[in-house]
């Protein structure tokens, strides 16, 4: 599903070049549950952004479902982000002025789904993440755990194959964090490919495979199960 060959990502800050990724080779099979761990600045988020087509590699090849991402246009990348990939962020990244319902609706709108189908889908998603009664709440009226569940529902809106989560439990208490991890595990059992960046050992213990990054390179591969 995901094939990365010698991926390099270089950022240019003024005159200074900074290499966030120095040559990543990564294969992820469909339906895998992977945790990406590593110290800050090791390139986890950069890897995640490239995997989710939010960013493009400076060098190397990235094949997503057999398509060479390097060659896609901005609109094609937007389409992949809309339909194939679902993002979950540490800071939730919900639209502050919109209700839970409206936040989940955004990717459906971009996908051009009609009003009735949207309503059906959003109701189903809210039920799936246990927030059926919070549809009309705005982010300010929800707890961190609830916000993250809205964000997951949003990520799932267009039934993507891949779920990418960047420290999804980083801003949550352990109980809420546990609920979120349970949801990810269920998604994996339903056949989704799940990649989670985390420092949380609770998550790391429950995944199929851990990818450890250090200084922009993959450190070692091991299987905790």
């Amino acid at each position, binding site marked *: 599903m995901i094939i990365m060959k010698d991926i390099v990502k270089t950022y240019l800050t003024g005159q200074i070049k900074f290499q966030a990724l120095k040559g990543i080779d990564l294969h992820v099979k469909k339906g895998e549950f992977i945790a990406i761990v590593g110290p800050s600045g090791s390139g986890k988020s950069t890897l995640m952004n490239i995997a*989710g087509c939010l960013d493009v590699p400076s060098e190397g090849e990235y094949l997503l479902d057999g398509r060479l991402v390097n060659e896609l246009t*901005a609109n094609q990348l937007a389409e992949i*982000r809309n339909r194939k990939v679902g993002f979950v962020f540490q800071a939730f990244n919900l*639209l502050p002025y919109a209700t839970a319902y409206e936040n989940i609706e*955004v990717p459906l709108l971009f*996908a051009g789904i009609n009003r009735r189908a949207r309503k059906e889908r959003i109701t189903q998603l809210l039920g799936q993440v246990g927030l059926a009664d919070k549809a009309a709440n705005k982010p300010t009226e929800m707890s961190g755990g609830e916000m993250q569940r809205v964000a997951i529902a949003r990520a799932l809106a267009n039934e993507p194959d891949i779920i990418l989560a960047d420290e999804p439990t980083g801003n949550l208490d352990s109980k809420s964090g546990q609920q979120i991890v349970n949801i990810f595990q269920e998604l994996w059992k339903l056949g989704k490919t799940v990649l989670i960046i985390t420092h949380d050992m609770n998550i790391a213990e429950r995944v199929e495979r851990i990818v450890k990054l250090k200084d922009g390179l993959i450190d070692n591969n091991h299987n905790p199960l």
Partner: protein
Amino acid sequence: MYLTIIINVFVRDFRKQKKRITLTLLALAWGTISIMLLLAFGEGLHRQMNINQKGMGENIGVMWAGQTTKAYQGMGKGRRIWLYKEDPEFLAAQIPEIAVIGGEYTRWGQQVKYKDEILDEHITGIPPCYKQIRNHIPQRGGRMINQIDMDEKRRVTFLGSDIKNRLFIDEDAVGKQILINNIPFTVIGVMVDKMQMSNYEGMDEDAVAIPATTFKAIFGDRYLDYIVYKPHDPESMPAIEKKIYQTMSAKYRFDPTDDRAISIWDTVSGSKEFDNIMIGIKMFLGIIGFLTLLTAGVGVANIMYVSIKERTREIGIKMAVGAKKSLILYQFLLEALLITFVGGGLGMSVSYILTEGFKRVPLDNPIMELMGRPTISFEIGLVVIIILGIMGLLSGIFPAMRAASTNPVESLRYE
């Protein structure tokens, strides 16, 4: 639904930056009011000037005689040419393009008396056709000089509205007798109030008009002072003028190119020039208004830039869940247009209310009589809407392009 989100965003922004958006809306409304009112005043002035100009008569030619300035067939220059009372009829017969024609006598400094009021006034001897060519329209209850007055050389008079007021003050004039050089005349009518910008011999509102035949009988004038004519088609004025020179020069033997022997004032070409001057004035007013509006437009662009900076994260989120660049572009463009049209609409409504208010102010002082009432025409509305549209687009497109070109990764990191 997407529109709802845009509106939601707009409402949220409005709440967050009430002051700034309110000020921008006010600036836009003010700019719109400026341009609307300036154009409306221009339009009102134009219309009023047109009315005033037509007070003398619409599309007419005025002819008077002078001295020759060119030698002709053995006669030296400086010879006096005269117009005779038969000339209007003669010209009408010779030149079929002329629809109506009449000759006029005039004298200044004649004594006019009613009761104890004695005035030194301007008397004109006119034919009945002045009702058509010179707009000598009687007020209710009166009438204009007619053919019977002419045929019988009746001692009747048709007064200008101003002289009527000076002689009679509040009294009704029709049917009363006045004395002109101690000869009694009966007032048969008073002219309607008439705004007049120009005339060849004083203002009509000050004139005491009597039948041309009576004038000739009393004052004994041998020559007409003016001949006034109106063509069937205003476009034929130059052709008529040429024919007048041909026939009159043949009749009175002067050089047909001698435009001092007989002078002609063609008000048709005059009104064209006048229209051009008015277009110039309106353009000038429009440019001032446009510049005011432009300042407001810069305000809109400014607020859009600021709002994009504040919403960098939101743009990043939308891009992360699959928004294409074009979508971001449209959203910000639409917002700029929304602000522009809400502000513009506000300004247009206020301008409309103001001009409607002006319509209720009576035109009874000299300044208002000259300026007219500001009038919003369909064209003004259209011009302002087009300007607002272009401005909204321009002030929106650059910030929107900037928003659409943001890097989603950096935007998401933006705090």
